[in-house]
């Protein structure tokens, strides 16, 4: 699996292959493992010299964990991380310490990323001290010079963190990340905690710094608007996996993955023609300790592929799929549906709701229309609903699972090239490619 158009023929500064980070969930005194939080479940990407790679996704998708793991601030469970060809994962403690001079991190929360009892100058000078610069005056000189270059003043050296605003603290954080002259900077949501007006300043500083010193930056964010401004290339993450990656321009103009499309739709647009194109994702973000089978996004994907032999209206299919998801989870509450029916005026009290009314209430809850256009599908649905209101949720679930099985829940899509030129992990593309292949093979059409 190759990455998309590399910047020139250079080798990547950072190379991540199949990075995995799981956190065990333990129980009891003996700490038996009863489950795992699959925060990062096999991601791969490259960062080239001088470029900014964006790692985007919702909160909880594992981006911060990925950053910590590749720097070995958390030990990865599996995978390979290479820095300029050397394997970071195999470093011993001495080599790891040297690596820390080459790769630095900027943290998200400016308030807690500085020791409240240390003057900020000392915090910035700390990496110098740790790596052996014993001369106090020399450290101070370097740091004072650096503080001025990030937009503060030399006299700020002796001030304490609480005396600065959020934006100023992030400047200090940038200074601290630069002070040992690294080649790679991992910025974990560096502007998320700041006001919008201040964000622009800090992003500008980051860009200037990158230009002046030729840094490579891994930029982590959940904010697509910011990413568009700052990043050369983007990797989109969902629930511990990368679902799409490519140059920023391409991703934003021709997003190939439904999740990316949904993320982009949430970016406010000045263009009045593009307003109102918001995509609402159904359901909640699944827990990383129990990710959905097949494509992890299938429980919320608006473009989920329909089962073979049926022809739904895509919206209705999503609605039916939502029902299936809830049945699988076992969180479908008939009592709530009864209350719903009463509220709708169908019946007078929850006990008196008839089977038909209950079935209708369930349909309404998921916004499934009273009758599906595909008759066969409608019959299957009715059978399932009958079983459900009779109290046999398992039977309903199994019936729907058999009849309405979709490839999206059955097979896990890998990152593969798409027509647009950059890879995405979605069965839609395989279908298109396969459909093309089929079409080109069959004599007619």
């Amino acid at each position: 699996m190759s990455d998309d158009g590399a910047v020139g023929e250079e080798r990547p500064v950072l190379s991540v292959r199949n990075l995995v980070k799981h956190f065990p969930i333990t129980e009891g005194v003996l700490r038996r493992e009863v489950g795992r939080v699959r925060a990062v479940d096999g991601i791969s990407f490259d960062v080239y010299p001088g470029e900014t790679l964006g790692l985007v996704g919702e909160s909880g998708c594992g981006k911060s964990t990925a950053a910590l793991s590749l720097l070995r601030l958390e030990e990865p469970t599996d995978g390979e991380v290479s820095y300029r060809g050397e394997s970071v994962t195999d470093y011993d403690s001495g080599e790891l310490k040297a690596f820390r001079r080459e790769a630095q991190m900027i943290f998200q929360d400016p308030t807690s990323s500085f020791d409240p009892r240390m003057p900020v100058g000392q915090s910035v000078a700390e990496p110098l001290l740790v790596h052996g610069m014993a001369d106090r005056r020399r450290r101070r000189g370097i740091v004072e010079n650096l503080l001025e270059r990030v937009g503060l003043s030399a006299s700020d050296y002796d001030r304490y963190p609480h005396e600065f605003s959020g934006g100023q603290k992030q400047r200090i954080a940038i200074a601290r990340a630069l002070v040992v002259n690294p080649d790679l900077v991992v910025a974990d949501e560096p502007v998320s905690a700041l006001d919008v007006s201040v964000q622009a300043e800090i992003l500008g500083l980051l860009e200037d710094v990158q230009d002046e010193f030729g840094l490579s930056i891994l930029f982590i964010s959940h904010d697509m608007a910011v990413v568009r401004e700052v990043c050369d290339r983007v990797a989109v993450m969902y629930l511990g996996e990368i679902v799409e990656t490519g140059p920023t321009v391409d991703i934003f103009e021709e997003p190939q993955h439904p999740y990316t499309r949904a993320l982009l739709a949430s970016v406010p647009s000045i263009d009045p023609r593009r307003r109102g194109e918001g995509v609402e994702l159904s359901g909640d973000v699944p827990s990383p300790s129990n990710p959905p089978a097949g494509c992890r996004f299938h429980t919320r994907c608006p473009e989920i592929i329909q089962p073979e032999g049926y022809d739904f209206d895509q919206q209705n299919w999503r609605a039916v799929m939502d029902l299936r998801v809830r049945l699988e989870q076992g969180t479908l509450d008939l009592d709530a549906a009864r209350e719903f029916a009463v509220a709708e005026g169908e019946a007078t009290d929850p006990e008196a709701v008839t089977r038909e009314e209950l079935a209708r209430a369930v349909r309404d809850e998921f916004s499934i229309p009273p009758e599906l256009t595909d008759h066969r599908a409608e019959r299957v649905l009715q059978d399932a609903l009958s079983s459900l209101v009779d109290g046999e949720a398992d039977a309903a679930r199994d019936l729907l699972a058999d009849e309405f099985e979709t490839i999206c829940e059955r097979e896990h899509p890998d990152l593969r090239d798409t027509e647009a030129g950059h890879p995405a992990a979605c069965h839609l593309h395989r279908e298109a490619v396969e459909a093309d292949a089929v079409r080109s093979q069959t004599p007619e059409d």
Partner: protein
Amino acid sequence: MATESGDPERFEDVDWDELGGLAVPRRTLAFVASLVAYALLLGYDYLLVAEDQPTIPVAGWNVTAVDWLFLLTLLAIVFYGVVPLVVNRRLTVHYWHQFRKNRAAVVSLVYLLVIFVVGTVGTAFIEPPQLDTLAAYQPPVYSSVPADVPVSCAGEVVDGRCQGTWAHPFGTTGQGKDILKMVVFGMEVSMQVGLIATFITIVLATAVGTTAAYLGGYVDEVLMRYVDIQLTFPTFFLYLLLVYLFGGSLFLLILIFGLTGWGAIARLVRSEALQRSEEEFVRAAKGAGASTPYVIWRHLVPNVSNTVITAATLLIPSLILAEAALSFLGLGDPTVPSWGRVIADGRGDLSSAWWISTIPGFFLFFTILAFNFLGDALRDALDPRQEGGE
């Protein structure tokens, strides 16, 4: 470096291959130097000077084991208590402003400083209380006692009552020892017990608490289980048992207090350190390449120091009280003029010579009260929730 003189050095010009190795702060160097000097003196005393010979012939002072411990404690207090206060002047001034609001605490502080100075320095210049049967049972100045109580009255006898004199402002004991001197030497004992034992306690508690919190996992479990076990034995009865078995020397007493009483503070330190370990600056230090001992020492310990100082200040009075109680019960060090012992000695003569038991007790009471006021005020002044408001 390739910079011209007068130009500030830039971070990108640093040649990292030249550097590398340990960077030791000045304070640590100074402390280590003083420790070396201390060790040399200690070696001299123990190896070269005979048991009964005074260590400093000029002053006739035979330095005891407790004295050596006290010196060590004072060194630590200077380097790690006084020096940081002087260096971080703004922070110190801020704390002082908060502290000043509590007037009782300020008075207490002054009183305790006086006691400290008199107890440590003063005792070197005053002769210890001497046995003197002729001077027994002298009443304090401005009071009188029936003339038949003292063996011979040092002052005038008026109306059959012996008058007190300034020669013995607080009177004398049944053995003729001047009570003022007993009070002063008692100060030394209390100071030594309070400070040394607390010092041992906070060193142990901080080390265990921060390490358990930072490393977590197995280390944490083991350490905290040990603390649980240590805490189940009620401390007073542990003292009783140990004193019974090993005898009641002051040195042993201090060791027992220090080595068995640190559990509760360790727990406190651990819970505070746990909260701090979650903060990102700890991760930032790690990301800079810092080792575990460095992170614990430079980041965790300073951030729990407020809790530790408050707890320590409240621990000192209970230790002083415990030592006084043990001495009172006759279980303390019989060679040392502890306040508790004086009070116990005076009990038999309560009706005739009331001053023996009462006066030292006042000093004991006020000292403990002063520490409690101090500790309470420190707790408010050092409250981390108040930090950040300038």
